[in-house]
Protein backbone atom coordinates (compact mmCIF):
# COMPACT_ATOMS: atom_id res chain seq x y z
CA UNK A 1 0.00 0.00 0.00
CA UNK A 2 1.36 3.38 -0.97
CA UNK A 3 -0.02 4.97 2.21
CA UNK A 4 2.29 3.09 4.58
CA UNK A 5 5.43 5.25 4.13
CA UNK A 6 3.45 8.42 4.86
CA UNK A 7 1.75 6.87 7.91
CA UNK A 8 5.04 5.59 9.32
CA UNK A 9 6.94 8.83 8.67
CA UNK A 10 4.20 10.93 10.28
CA UNK A 11 3.99 8.62 13.29
CA UNK A 12 7.77 8.79 13.79
CA UNK A 13 7.68 12.58 13.41
CA UNK A 14 4.91 12.90 15.98
CA UNK A 15 6.88 10.77 18.45
CA UNK A 16 10.03 12.84 17.93
CA UNK A 17 8.08 16.06 18.58
CA UNK A 18 6.88 14.62 21.89
CA UNK A 19 10.35 13.40 22.85
CA UNK A 20 11.96 16.71 21.88
CA UNK A 21 9.76 18.46 24.45
CA UNK A 22 10.76 16.04 27.19
CA UNK A 23 14.45 16.26 26.37
CA UNK A 24 14.71 20.00 25.67
CA UNK A 25 16.15 22.38 28.22
CA UNK A 26 13.53 23.75 30.62
CA UNK A 27 14.44 27.38 29.85
CA UNK A 28 12.88 27.15 26.35
CA UNK A 29 9.53 27.35 28.12
CA UNK A 30 10.54 30.70 29.59
CA UNK A 31 10.94 32.28 26.16
CA UNK A 32 7.75 34.37 25.87
CA UNK A 33 7.84 34.66 22.06
CA UNK A 34 8.18 30.92 21.59
CA UNK A 35 5.44 30.18 24.08
CA UNK A 36 3.10 32.70 22.51
CA UNK A 37 3.61 31.30 19.02
CA UNK A 38 3.34 27.70 20.21
CA UNK A 39 -0.02 28.40 21.85
CA UNK A 40 -1.33 30.27 18.78
CA UNK A 41 -0.44 27.66 16.10
CA UNK A 42 -2.92 25.01 17.30
CA UNK A 43 -5.67 27.65 17.50
CA UNK A 44 -5.18 28.63 13.83
CA UNK A 45 -4.91 24.98 12.73
CA UNK A 46 -7.94 23.77 14.68
CA UNK A 47 -10.12 26.65 13.46
CA UNK A 48 -9.04 25.97 9.87
CA UNK A 49 -9.77 22.24 10.23
CA UNK A 50 -13.23 22.91 11.69
CA UNK A 51 -14.12 25.23 8.80
CA UNK A 52 -12.77 23.00 6.04
CA UNK A 53 -14.21 19.73 7.39
CA UNK A 54 -17.61 21.24 8.23
CA UNK A 55 -18.00 22.72 4.72
CA UNK A 56 -16.34 19.90 2.77
CA UNK A 57 -17.99 19.21 -0.59
CA UNK A 58 -17.14 17.06 -3.59
CA UNK A 59 -13.46 17.28 -4.47
CA UNK A 60 -12.11 20.75 -3.64
CA UNK A 61 -15.48 22.50 -3.68
CA UNK A 62 -17.09 23.81 -0.52
CA UNK A 63 -20.66 22.78 0.18
CA UNK A 64 -23.35 23.49 2.74
CA UNK A 65 -24.74 20.27 4.21
CA UNK A 66 -27.63 21.20 6.51
CA UNK A 67 -27.55 17.92 8.44
CA UNK A 68 -23.80 18.19 9.08
CA UNK A 69 -24.06 21.84 10.11
CA UNK A 70 -26.86 20.92 12.53
CA UNK A 71 -24.47 18.40 14.08
CA UNK A 72 -21.70 21.01 14.37
CA UNK A 73 -24.26 23.36 15.94
CA UNK A 74 -25.17 20.65 18.46
CA UNK A 75 -21.47 20.29 19.32
CA UNK A 76 -21.21 24.05 19.94
CA UNK A 77 -24.32 23.93 22.13
CA UNK A 78 -22.90 21.01 24.12
CA UNK A 79 -19.66 22.95 24.63
CA UNK A 80 -21.55 26.04 25.82
CA UNK A 81 -23.34 23.78 28.32
CA UNK A 82 -19.91 22.48 29.42
CA UNK A 83 -20.72 18.91 28.46
CA UNK A 84 -17.91 16.33 28.57
CA UNK A 85 -15.90 15.72 25.39
CA UNK A 86 -17.65 12.44 24.66
CA UNK A 87 -21.11 14.05 24.83
CA UNK A 88 -19.95 16.78 22.41
CA UNK A 89 -18.82 14.17 19.87
CA UNK A 90 -21.87 11.93 20.26
CA UNK A 91 -24.26 14.90 20.04
CA UNK A 92 -22.71 15.94 16.72
CA UNK A 93 -23.11 12.46 15.22
CA UNK A 94 -26.62 11.83 16.58
CA UNK A 95 -28.00 15.21 15.45
CA UNK A 96 -26.43 14.84 12.00
CA UNK A 97 -27.78 11.29 11.60
CA UNK A 98 -31.20 12.38 12.88
CA UNK A 99 -31.41 15.39 10.54
CA UNK A 100 -30.41 13.19 7.62
CA UNK A 101 -33.06 10.61 8.50
CA UNK A 102 -35.61 13.45 8.49
CA UNK A 103 -34.52 14.34 4.96
CA UNK A 104 -32.31 17.42 5.47
Amino acid at each position, binding site marked *: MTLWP*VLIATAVGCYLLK*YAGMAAPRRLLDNPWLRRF*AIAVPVA*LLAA*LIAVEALRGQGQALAWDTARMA*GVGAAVLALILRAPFLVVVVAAAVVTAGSRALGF
Partner: protein
Amino acid sequence: MKILSLLRSPAVRDGLGIGVAVGVAGLAFGTAAVAAGLSPAQAVFLSAFMFTGASQFALIGVIAGGGSLVAGALGALLLGARNTLYGLRLTDVLQWRGMRRVAAAHGVIDETTAVTLAQPDRVSARTAFVTTYVVLGSFWAATTLMGALATERVNDISAFGLDAVGPAIFLGLLWPRLRDEGGRTRLIALLGAGVALATTPFLPPGVPVLLAASAALIALLGPDPKTIASDANEKDPSMDRNEEVGS
Protein backbone atom coordinates in the same frame (compact mmCIF):
# COMPACT_ATOMS: atom_id res chain seq x y z
CA MET B 1 -6.44 -4.65 49.32
CA LYS B 2 -3.58 -2.64 47.94
CA ILE B 3 -5.36 -2.53 44.59
CA LEU B 4 -8.54 -1.25 46.21
CA SER B 5 -6.79 1.62 47.93
CA LEU B 6 -4.91 2.38 44.72
CA LEU B 7 -8.21 2.58 42.82
CA ARG B 8 -9.47 5.05 45.37
CA SER B 9 -6.58 7.46 44.93
CA PRO B 10 -7.60 10.61 43.04
CA ALA B 11 -4.70 10.26 40.60
CA VAL B 12 -5.87 6.84 39.44
CA ARG B 13 -9.53 7.84 39.42
CA ASP B 14 -8.87 10.90 37.22
CA GLY B 15 -6.76 8.81 34.89
CA LEU B 16 -9.36 6.04 34.57
CA GLY B 17 -12.26 8.45 34.02
CA ILE B 18 -10.66 10.49 31.29
CA GLY B 19 -9.03 7.43 29.74
CA VAL B 20 -12.31 5.56 29.29
CA ALA B 21 -14.22 8.60 28.02
CA VAL B 22 -11.69 9.66 25.41
CA GLY B 23 -10.81 6.12 24.40
CA VAL B 24 -14.34 5.68 23.11
CA ALA B 25 -13.73 8.48 20.59
CA GLY B 26 -11.47 5.90 18.92
CA LEU B 27 -14.63 4.36 17.46
CA ALA B 28 -15.15 7.53 15.46
CA PHE B 29 -11.53 7.55 14.35
CA GLY B 30 -11.59 3.92 13.18
CA THR B 31 -14.75 4.62 11.22
CA ALA B 32 -13.44 7.82 9.63
CA ALA B 33 -10.08 6.21 8.79
CA VAL B 34 -11.62 3.28 6.90
CA ALA B 35 -14.07 5.63 5.18
CA ALA B 36 -11.03 7.66 4.06
CA GLY B 37 -9.54 4.56 2.44
CA LEU B 38 -7.17 3.21 5.10
CA SER B 39 -7.17 -0.49 5.96
CA PRO B 40 -8.12 -1.44 9.55
CA ALA B 41 -4.45 -2.32 10.14
CA GLN B 42 -3.38 1.17 9.04
CA ALA B 43 -6.03 2.79 11.25
CA VAL B 44 -4.86 0.81 14.30
CA PHE B 45 -1.21 1.54 13.44
CA LEU B 46 -1.93 5.29 13.62
CA SER B 47 -3.81 5.01 16.92
CA ALA B 48 -1.10 2.84 18.49
CA PHE B 49 2.01 4.65 17.22
CA MET B 50 1.09 8.17 16.15
CA PHE B 51 -1.17 8.34 19.21
CA THR B 52 -2.31 11.93 19.03
CA GLY B 53 -5.95 12.20 18.00
CA ALA B 54 -6.17 15.62 16.38
CA SER B 55 -3.18 14.91 14.10
CA GLN B 56 -4.63 11.53 13.17
CA PHE B 57 -7.96 13.08 12.18
CA ALA B 58 -6.18 15.87 10.27
CA LEU B 59 -4.10 13.34 8.29
CA ILE B 60 -7.00 11.09 7.32
CA GLY B 61 -9.08 14.16 6.44
CA VAL B 62 -6.52 15.04 3.76
CA ILE B 63 -6.32 11.42 2.59
CA ALA B 64 -10.14 11.28 2.35
CA GLY B 65 -10.15 14.45 0.24
CA GLY B 66 -7.57 12.98 -2.13
CA GLY B 67 -5.15 15.76 -1.24
CA SER B 68 -1.39 16.00 -1.18
CA LEU B 69 0.01 13.44 1.25
CA VAL B 70 2.97 15.68 2.05
CA ALA B 71 0.63 18.53 3.03
CA GLY B 72 -1.40 16.08 5.12
CA ALA B 73 1.69 14.86 6.93
CA LEU B 74 2.97 18.41 7.51
CA GLY B 75 -0.40 19.51 8.89
CA ALA B 76 -0.46 16.53 11.25
CA LEU B 77 3.08 17.31 12.43
CA LEU B 78 2.37 20.99 12.94
CA LEU B 79 -0.68 20.10 15.00
CA GLY B 80 1.39 17.51 16.88
CA ALA B 81 3.96 20.17 17.77
CA ARG B 82 1.80 21.28 20.70
CA ASN B 83 2.84 17.99 22.32
CA THR B 84 6.39 19.40 22.36
CA LEU B 85 5.14 22.16 24.63
CA TYR B 86 3.37 19.58 26.83
CA GLY B 87 6.58 17.55 26.99
CA LEU B 88 8.48 20.59 28.26
CA ARG B 89 5.96 21.00 31.08
CA LEU B 90 5.69 17.30 31.90
CA THR B 91 9.40 16.54 32.08
CA ASP B 92 9.65 19.17 34.79
CA VAL B 93 6.98 17.42 36.88
CA LEU B 94 7.77 13.76 36.14
CA GLN B 95 11.58 13.99 36.28
CA TRP B 96 12.15 10.78 34.35
CA ARG B 97 15.42 10.14 32.51
CA GLY B 98 16.87 7.58 30.12
CA MET B 99 14.65 4.72 28.94
CA ARG B 100 11.73 5.80 31.11
CA ARG B 101 11.66 9.13 29.33
CA VAL B 102 11.92 7.42 25.94
CA ALA B 103 8.86 5.32 26.84
CA ALA B 104 6.92 8.12 28.52
CA ALA B 105 7.36 10.49 25.54
CA HIS B 106 4.99 8.34 23.49
CA GLY B 107 2.23 9.10 26.00
CA VAL B 108 2.54 12.91 25.85
CA ILE B 109 -0.88 14.12 24.58
CA ASP B 110 -3.59 16.61 25.60
CA GLU B 111 -5.32 14.32 28.08
CA THR B 112 -2.31 12.85 29.88
CA THR B 113 -0.90 16.37 30.24
CA ALA B 114 -4.12 17.77 31.70
CA VAL B 115 -4.51 14.97 34.24
CA THR B 116 -0.82 14.89 35.22
CA LEU B 117 -0.43 18.63 35.72
CA ALA B 118 -3.58 18.71 37.88
CA GLN B 119 -1.92 16.51 40.55
CA PRO B 120 -0.54 18.07 43.73
CA ASP B 121 2.80 16.22 43.94
CA ARG B 122 5.33 14.18 41.94
CA VAL B 123 4.24 10.73 43.13
CA SER B 124 0.58 11.24 42.21
CA ALA B 125 1.61 13.01 38.99
CA ARG B 126 3.60 9.93 37.94
CA THR B 127 0.71 7.60 38.88
CA ALA B 128 -1.79 9.79 37.03
CA PHE B 129 0.40 9.93 33.91
CA VAL B 130 0.90 6.15 33.75
CA THR B 131 -2.78 5.37 34.45
CA THR B 132 -4.14 7.81 31.88
CA TYR B 133 -1.56 6.74 29.29
CA VAL B 134 -2.21 3.01 29.68
CA VAL B 135 -6.02 3.18 29.96
CA LEU B 136 -6.52 5.77 27.23
CA GLY B 137 -3.93 4.17 24.94
CA SER B 138 -5.44 0.69 25.09
CA PHE B 139 -9.02 1.96 24.71
CA TRP B 140 -7.99 4.21 21.82
CA ALA B 141 -6.36 1.37 19.88
CA ALA B 142 -9.09 -1.18 20.69
CA THR B 143 -11.97 1.13 19.77
CA THR B 144 -10.18 2.21 16.59
CA LEU B 145 -10.08 -1.45 15.55
CA MET B 146 -13.78 -1.90 16.40
CA GLY B 147 -14.80 1.20 14.43
CA ALA B 148 -12.61 0.17 11.49
CA LEU B 149 -13.97 -3.37 11.30
CA ALA B 150 -17.57 -2.20 11.65
CA THR B 151 -17.16 0.32 8.83
CA GLU B 152 -15.83 -2.33 6.47
CA ARG B 153 -19.22 -4.03 6.78
CA VAL B 154 -21.43 -0.97 6.42
CA ASN B 155 -22.05 0.59 3.02
CA ASP B 156 -23.22 4.12 3.75
CA ILE B 157 -21.65 5.60 6.85
CA SER B 158 -23.03 9.09 6.17
CA ALA B 159 -26.34 7.82 7.61
CA PHE B 160 -24.60 7.64 11.02
CA GLY B 161 -23.61 11.31 10.96
CA LEU B 162 -19.94 10.48 11.37
CA ASP B 163 -18.86 13.28 9.02
CA ALA B 164 -19.73 15.68 11.86
CA VAL B 165 -17.46 13.88 14.32
CA GLY B 166 -14.19 15.35 12.96
CA PRO B 167 -15.34 18.99 13.27
CA ALA B 168 -16.81 18.22 16.73
CA ILE B 169 -13.50 16.82 17.97
CA PHE B 170 -11.55 19.84 16.68
CA LEU B 171 -14.16 22.13 18.28
CA GLY B 172 -13.75 20.37 21.60
CA LEU B 173 -9.99 21.00 21.47
CA LEU B 174 -10.32 24.61 20.31
CA TRP B 175 -13.06 25.70 22.73
CA PRO B 176 -11.12 25.94 26.01
CA ARG B 177 -8.28 27.78 24.21
CA LEU B 178 -10.70 30.47 22.98
CA ARG B 179 -12.22 30.91 26.41
CA ASP B 180 -8.88 31.28 28.13
CA GLU B 181 -7.03 33.58 25.84
CA GLY B 182 -9.38 36.39 24.88
CA GLY B 183 -9.61 38.65 21.84
CA ARG B 184 -6.35 38.01 20.07
CA THR B 185 -6.88 34.26 20.08
CA ARG B 186 -10.36 34.66 18.58
CA LEU B 187 -8.87 36.83 15.84
CA ILE B 188 -6.28 34.13 15.10
CA ALA B 189 -9.04 31.49 14.96
CA LEU B 190 -11.22 33.59 12.62
CA LEU B 191 -8.32 34.37 10.31
CA GLY B 192 -7.21 30.74 10.29
CA ALA B 193 -10.68 29.57 9.30
CA GLY B 194 -11.02 32.39 6.74
CA VAL B 195 -7.68 31.70 5.04
CA ALA B 196 -8.44 27.98 4.86
CA LEU B 197 -11.91 28.47 3.38
CA ALA B 198 -10.79 31.12 0.88
CA THR B 199 -7.99 28.95 -0.51
CA THR B 200 -9.73 25.54 -0.42
CA PRO B 201 -11.21 25.79 -3.96
CA PHE B 202 -7.77 26.59 -5.46
CA LEU B 203 -5.27 24.43 -3.55
CA PRO B 204 -4.98 20.66 -2.99
CA PRO B 205 -6.61 19.45 0.27
CA GLY B 206 -4.27 19.87 3.23
CA VAL B 207 -2.46 22.93 1.89
CA PRO B 208 -5.14 25.47 2.96
CA VAL B 209 -4.88 24.26 6.55
CA LEU B 210 -1.11 24.65 6.45
CA LEU B 211 -1.47 28.15 5.07
CA ALA B 212 -3.91 28.98 7.88
CA ALA B 213 -1.17 28.32 10.43
CA SER B 214 0.41 31.56 9.29
CA ALA B 215 -2.47 33.35 11.06
CA ALA B 216 -0.65 32.40 14.25
CA LEU B 217 1.97 35.02 13.38
CA ILE B 218 -0.48 37.57 14.81
CA ALA B 219 0.46 36.21 18.20
CA LEU B 220 3.85 37.86 17.68
CA LEU B 221 2.35 41.31 17.07
CA GLY B 222 1.17 43.77 19.68
CA PRO B 223 2.58 44.57 23.07
CA ASP B 224 5.73 42.95 24.39
CA PRO B 225 4.72 39.48 25.55
CA LYS B 226 6.79 39.93 28.70
CA THR B 227 4.42 42.58 29.99
CA ILE B 228 1.45 40.51 28.96
CA ALA B 229 2.85 37.50 30.75
CA SER B 230 3.41 39.41 33.97
CA ASP B 231 -0.06 40.99 33.81
CA ALA B 232 -1.61 37.59 33.30
CA ASN B 233 0.40 36.09 36.11
CA GLU B 234 -1.45 38.16 38.66
CA LYS B 235 -4.84 36.74 37.77
CA ASP B 236 -4.08 33.47 36.11
CA PRO B 237 -0.57 32.11 35.61
CA SER B 238 0.04 32.27 31.88
CA MET B 239 2.07 29.08 32.09
CA ASP B 240 -1.09 27.13 32.88
CA ARG B 241 -3.07 28.48 29.99
CA ASN B 242 -3.10 25.54 27.71
CA GLU B 243 -3.54 22.86 30.30
CA GLU B 244 -7.24 22.75 29.95
CA VAL B 245 -7.92 20.61 26.96
CA GLY B 246 -10.82 19.20 25.11
CA SER B 247 -12.03 16.48 27.37
